[in-house]
Each structure stands twice: as C-alpha cells, then as structure tokens.
C-alpha cells in the first residue's frame, strides 16, 4: 500500500460520482479541444488561401464587403464589375509589378456546380507558380481550352483530352494542375477572353490581383491605384483580417460555450472532492493517528484531483477531436467554410493535445487546492469524533 494505490482506490470508491465528475471534465475539455482545432483550422486555411492568391494587393469594385472578399479567397462566383479600361490604368501605375485579372464564374458540369475562373494564362502562371501534373499548359492567351484543378480532375475522373463544358459549350481539357492545397484544386481555369465571351461580360472582370515591386511602398502604390482608377484596394493582410472578423464571430460564441463548460467542470471537481473530504473525515483522522502528515493528506487529495484532470483530458481530447471532425463544418458553417472540404476546417496536432492535457491537469489541480486544504485542517480528534 502506498500513496498512489490509496489515491486510486479512493478515486474509484463512489463509481457513480466518479463517472459523472469525469464526464463533466471530459465534456468541458472536449469543448475546449473542438474550439482549438476548428478555430485554428479555419485560421490556417484562410491564411493559406490568402497566400495561394499570390498577390499583395487585391483590387475590387468599390463597396464590396467581407462576404465578397471571402469569395476572392475561395474562388466563388463574383459579379463582374471592373472594366478592362481600369485594368490598363492600374498596370501603368509605377510600383505595380503585375496586375492579373480574375473573372470568377460558375458552371454546371454533370449536374455539379464547378468554379470557372477566367485568367491571363502567362501572368497567372507567373503569379501562382503553378506546375502541371499531366497534360500541358495554355499555348496562347486565347486558346479554347481548360486547365483544371487536381480535385476536380479526381472528382469527375477527367484527364487531358477529355471534354469539359462551360455553360454547355464544349472546351477540351488540356492539362491538370498539381495539387496545391488551395482553392486552385477545386477550380477550372480558362483564358479570360474566352470566359468573357462565354459569359457574355465583355470588357469586365471580377477583381484584380496585384503584385507590387517594393513591399515597403505597398501603401503608396495602393493609394495611387485608388487615385487613378475608380476601384477599392485591400492588402492581403486586410483581406485575411476582414475574413477572420466574420469567421471569428462564430468563434466567440463557441469560446463562451467552451469557457462555461470548462468552468463547470472545475466546479464539479471542487464539489466532488469537498464531499469526499467530508465523507472521509474519520478516515483522515485514522490516517493521522497512524502517522500521516498533513502533507501526505494534501498530496492524496491533490493527486485524486489531478487524476480527474488527466483522465478527463484524455477523454476530452478524444471526444473533442471526434466532434471537430464530424461536426466541424456545421459548427463553423459560413460562406468561407462552405466551399472547403470538411477536414480542411480542422487543424489537429500534438501541440493541441499537449496543451489541452496540460490545461486539464492544471485546472484540476487548481480545483483540488481548496478541498485538499480543508482535509489538512481537520484535526485527528475532530475527525474521529464522527462515528
């Protein structure tokens, strides 16, 4: 018999109370884990998409709000609103290295919605540093052909030479892009002129991705563009933070739920241990008569509390990860996540496990302090008076 054995025996004495207290801790920690993984997954994904854009500045029509800005990142259909004449002006602004127009549209292929993005082939390839997985890239800026993302190729089992249709018009597939982990995987690309012709939007584009030649002068370049053209300009960082502000509002509600869950779990531990101290006050007296120091008693209750934290942490991480994978997309249902694969919204790593376990144990130890202190304050005589 030693301290560990005694603590373990004490923990399992009241099975019902043990299970319910543990369930409380597990649920609290599960909420914490789900929040961490889903929230972090979203942030990572948004940042990745912003990087995938390859631009420092995004030129948009005036009056766009965050909803449209999200679509820039996800490649969703966008109104075509910037005339080509403005594009020419922007390309002439000093400090603009490249300005690549995008026309974001949607088509139905085999009754499934598919993104179609009109681009300038050479400029787009330089901006995205694309590589081709199979087939070839566009030969000329007005070739009647489509280059498709890796996920689309997989979904429809398409290979170079197959026929794709845009708004019912046949367009041959000439190449498949290497998987990039961004929205490019779930989009198809055709030359801008072709897109404008098929969608009947002469002379207009959805937005323009701009690369500046000097990052230091980004702000000045942005102002200059707005001066000469009738457009709005956001930096890539502004784009990310404005998207995060929408997604973040979902996070705040979840954070509150998780905080309440965690707090309730801690109170559950305090409650269970205070009851245990009261129930065992005679045993505490016996242990003192047998030579137990107050330190041993304190340790025994702290260990018991810590075990609730450890076991609750293990269960909580398991449940939380399951919840995040199964329901992550529902919990964070919004315009941004709608276009992503479910698993993409969940970021799960060993850091999160360790953080949660550590947090769970620390929380439990903190919750155990008061009951453990109460146990040491019992005098052996008082304790044995209760029969």
């Amino acid at each position: 018999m030693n301290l560990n054995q005694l603590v373990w025996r004490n923990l399992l004495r009241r099975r019902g109370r043990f299970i319910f207290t543990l369930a409380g801790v597990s649920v609290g920690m599960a909420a914490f884990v789900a929040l961490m993984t889903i929230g972090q997954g979203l942030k990572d994904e948004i940042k990745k998409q912003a990087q995938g854009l390859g631009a420092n500045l995004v030129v948009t029509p005036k009056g766009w709000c965050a909803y449209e800005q999200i679509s820039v990142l996800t490649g969703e259909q966008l109104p075509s609103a910037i005339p080509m004449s403005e594009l020419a002006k922007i390309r002439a602004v000093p400090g603009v290295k490249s300005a690549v127009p995008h026309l974001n549209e949607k088509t139905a292929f085999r009754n499934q919605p598919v993104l179609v993005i009109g681009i300038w082939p050479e400029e787009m390839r330089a901006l995205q540093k694309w590589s081709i997985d199979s087939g070839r890239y566009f030969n000329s800026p007005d070739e009647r052909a489509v280059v498709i993302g890796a996920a689309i190729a997989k979904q429809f089992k398409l290979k170079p030479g197959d026929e794709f249709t845009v708004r019912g018009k046949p367009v041959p597939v000439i190449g498949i892009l290497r998987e990039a982990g961004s929205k490019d995987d779930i989009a198809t690309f055709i030359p801008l002129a072709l897109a404008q012709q098929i969608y009947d939007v002469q002379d207009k584009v959805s937005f323009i991705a701009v690369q500046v030649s000097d990052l230091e002068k980004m702000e000045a370049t942005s102002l200059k563009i707005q001066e000469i053209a009738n457009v709005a300009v956001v930096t890539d960082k502004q784009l990310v933070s404005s998207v995060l502000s929408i997604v973040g509002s979902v996070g705040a509600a979840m954070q509150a739920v998780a905080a309440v869950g965690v707090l309730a779990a801690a109170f559950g531990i305090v409650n269970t241990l205070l009851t245990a101290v009261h129930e065992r006050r005679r045993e505490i007296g016996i242990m003192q008569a047998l030579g137990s120091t107050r330190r041993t008693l304190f340790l025994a209750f702290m260990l018991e509390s810590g075990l609730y934290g450890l076991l609750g942490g293990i269960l909580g991480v398991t449940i939380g990860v399951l919840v995040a994978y199964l329901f992550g997309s529902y919990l964070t249902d919004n315009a941004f996540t709608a276009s992503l694969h479910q698993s993409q919204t969940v970021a799960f790593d060993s850091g999160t496990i360790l953080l949660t376990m550590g947090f769970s144990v620390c929380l439990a130890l903190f919750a155990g302090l008061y009951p453990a202190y109460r146990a040491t304050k019992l005098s052996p005589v008082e304790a044995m008076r209760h029969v």
Partner: protein
Amino acid sequence: MSNAVIKLEKVSKTYGSGAAEAKAVSEVSMTVERGSWVAIMGPSGHGKSTLLQLIGGLDRPSAGRIVLDGSELGTLDAAELAAVRGKKIGFVFQFFNLMPHLTALENVEIALWLGGGAHSKGRAMGLLERFGLGDKAHHLPSMLSGGQQQRVAIARALANEPDILLMDEPTGNLDSGSEAELLTLLGELHKAGKTLIMVTHNPTVASHAQRLVHVKDGRIEEDRCNGV
C-alpha cells in the same frame, strides 16, 4: 535512567473560552512505567478519552507538559508529532476504525506505509497470521465479525512495532467471547514488554490491568495497583 515511558506534568485541556469554557482534563500529573498495563476508568464525559488523545499526540494540551519516550510533545511540530504517532504509538479504538474500502491486509499495510518504517514485504501478512486472520486477509472489514475487525485493528496498531499501545474502549463493541480472546491477546503483548494503556468502563476488563486510574471531572480521583 528512569524507567518512565510516559510522563504528564499538570496537564490541562480546555475547550471553548470565557463563560462557555469547559475543562476536559484538569492538571493531571502521572507517570507510566515502561512495560506496565494501565486501565483508565471513570464515568462518560469525564475526560478519559481526552487524556488518552493527549498522551497519544492526537491533541495538544492547553497547559502542562507531556514527555513520551524522552521527547516533549509540546516542542514538536506537526510533522514530528505525526512521526511519533506513526512509530512509537499504536492506537486501538472502540469502533475499530478500519478503512472500510481497504482489505484487512491493506489496512495493516497502510499503517506500515504511513509509519514510514522499512519493513519486509510479508510483515503485514505475518501479523494477520499471528492473530489467526491469515485466511481473512483479502476480506473487507464489512465481511469480518467485530472480534476479527478488532484483531485486524491490533495488527495494524502493531505494524510499526511501537512500544506503547493506546486503546479507547477496545472491548466496547465486542461480545463476551471476543472480549476474552482480546484480553488473552493483550496479556501476551503485556508479557512481551509492550506498555498498554486502555480506557474502559468495564471492571472485568480493567481487572486484567496492573494499575487502575480513576478519572472524575478531568482529575485523577484514585490511582492504585490492581488487587491492592
């Protein structure tokens, strides 16, 4: 060298304060020789148990000095006092006070652990066998008779080979058969040189002791050798 193992000098214990002040033990002085068997007798609520708790270091006196096997209890801090309880004293209680969720064997083992001495692995089992409880080692206290529980309690009290056994109504909850068995056992321990101090109501039980101390209103009323 004096042969006194316990020495009390004008020991008092007061509960409460002011008008509500109650003296449980009042200026008791006594000496207990090593290897003697003392019975403390007297009416309920007159300070017998309190006296035993003071001697055993479970409680501290309001005034006076208690010297136990050379160390003055008043000068010890809480941890040192715990060590004295664990190593030098074995307690036996009226209600056995076994840990209800631990087996007989574990009840003895927990005393070995808390007393902190280094003991061979089989010591706890050896003690139970010595008291005829070898086959009950893995039983919970609730599955044992009163007499068996009290023998487990004595095995536990002896776990760390203390010189002194302090017993509060050890036969209070036993039938006459178990009582006789227990008294035989105590007789053997007495012969083996242990110092036994027991609080009891029962004159028959007390008659086995060498020395009878009568307590009334927290004071020693009579202190005499048995049979004199």
